[in-house]
């Protein structure tokens, strides 16, 4: 039953998330809020892992969520892997179906005014959803509250602010910004341990 629900949730994610890996994050947040299978903080960890391992980020996210849900709800690493495969297939199934159809109408699709007009609306929407997902993660990681409505109780962690500023600067400095994300993540992990940011 959980596996079926997992497949369906990821099928919907694959169908409506447009514009790359980050675009799946708002949907995964929605799944987390609806099912309680994993926390928003865990989701942030999954993003870090998905960005620093090989493979498309969206696929990595699906696999990670699937594994976590399977191992936790059904018990054990074997069910984790089974659920990881099911979540991933759920995510890619709509793509495969849609691409097979679009491939027949390739030229018409590319030149379609309707497709262009729809995408004109979808692109800012996708960015808006990712921004909102980012706000939620900032609330948890930096301000240590669960929702925007608790912002009055937020405790501003100076450690988090300094680290955020440092990572921001580092990702914008010439040469440094060419580094693979894994280095920034590793450095942040180290700083997290030293400053006890857990």
């Amino acid at each position: 039953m959980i596996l079926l629900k997992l497949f369906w949730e990821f099928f919907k994610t694959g169908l409506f998330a447009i514009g790359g890996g980050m675009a799946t994050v708002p949907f995964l947040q929605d799944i987390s809020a609806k099912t309680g299978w994993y926390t928003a903080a865990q989701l942030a960890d999954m993003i870090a892992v998905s960005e620093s391992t090989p493979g498309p980020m969206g696929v990595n996210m699906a696999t990670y969520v699937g594994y976590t849900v399977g191992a936790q709800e059904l018990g054990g690493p074997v069910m984790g892997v089974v659920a990881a495969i099911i979540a991933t297939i759920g995510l890619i199934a709509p793509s495969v179906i849609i691409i097979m159809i679009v491939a027949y109408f390739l030229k018409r699709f590319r030149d379609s005014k309707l497709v262009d007009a729809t995408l004109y609306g979808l692109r800012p929407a996708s960015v808006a959803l990712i921004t909102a997902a980012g706000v939620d993660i900032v609330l948890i990681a930096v301000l240590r509250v669960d929702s925007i409505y608790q912002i009055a109780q937020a405790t501003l962690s100076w450690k988090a602010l300094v680290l955020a500023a440092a990572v921001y600067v580092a990702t914008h400095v010439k040469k440094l910004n060419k580094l693979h994300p894994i280095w920034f993540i590793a450095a942040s992990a180290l700083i997290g341990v030293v400053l006890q940011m857990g």
Partner: protein
Amino acid sequence: MKELLDLYFTFFRIGAVTFGGGYAMLPILQREVVDKKHWATEEELMDYYAIGQCTPGVIAVNTATFIGRKYRGILGGILTTLGVVSPSIIIISIIAAVINNFASIAWVQNALGGIRVCVCVFIFNSVVKLFKSAVKDKAALVIYLALFAVAVFFDFSPIYSVVVAGVLGVFFTKTGVRGK
């Protein structure tokens, strides 16, 4: 049969060496699919990639499906897709098992605390980049702000936002608001 296996394993390799997905994958696809295997021309690849960005789902998967279908029909499309996701399933399952088992240890918690802050900056950086390419006029800014506000303050499924945005896109284009 040999060709089908070749499709699967070539995309397995591509999935295993691509970090970050869609955007990072293009140069590798050019080398493997266009230059080495001749499964698609440079032009076709660019078309597939462009369409892969605006059809639902993961860009890398969409492009892989296109190429497989072009070369070997539906079965080819399915095999390239499975190939490109297989390394993720193996690698991530191992990492997830390790992290989930050690997550309760204090220093792992501390490390994750630092990593989460780093992720915030990553998301911010990608939002800035995506915003520049997605929001180019006032009407698009209206869509952005409206859906951002709804997503932050209400517990709506993002599916509704996507559907509404598609309709708004068509409406703004037809009424001539777009571009202003």
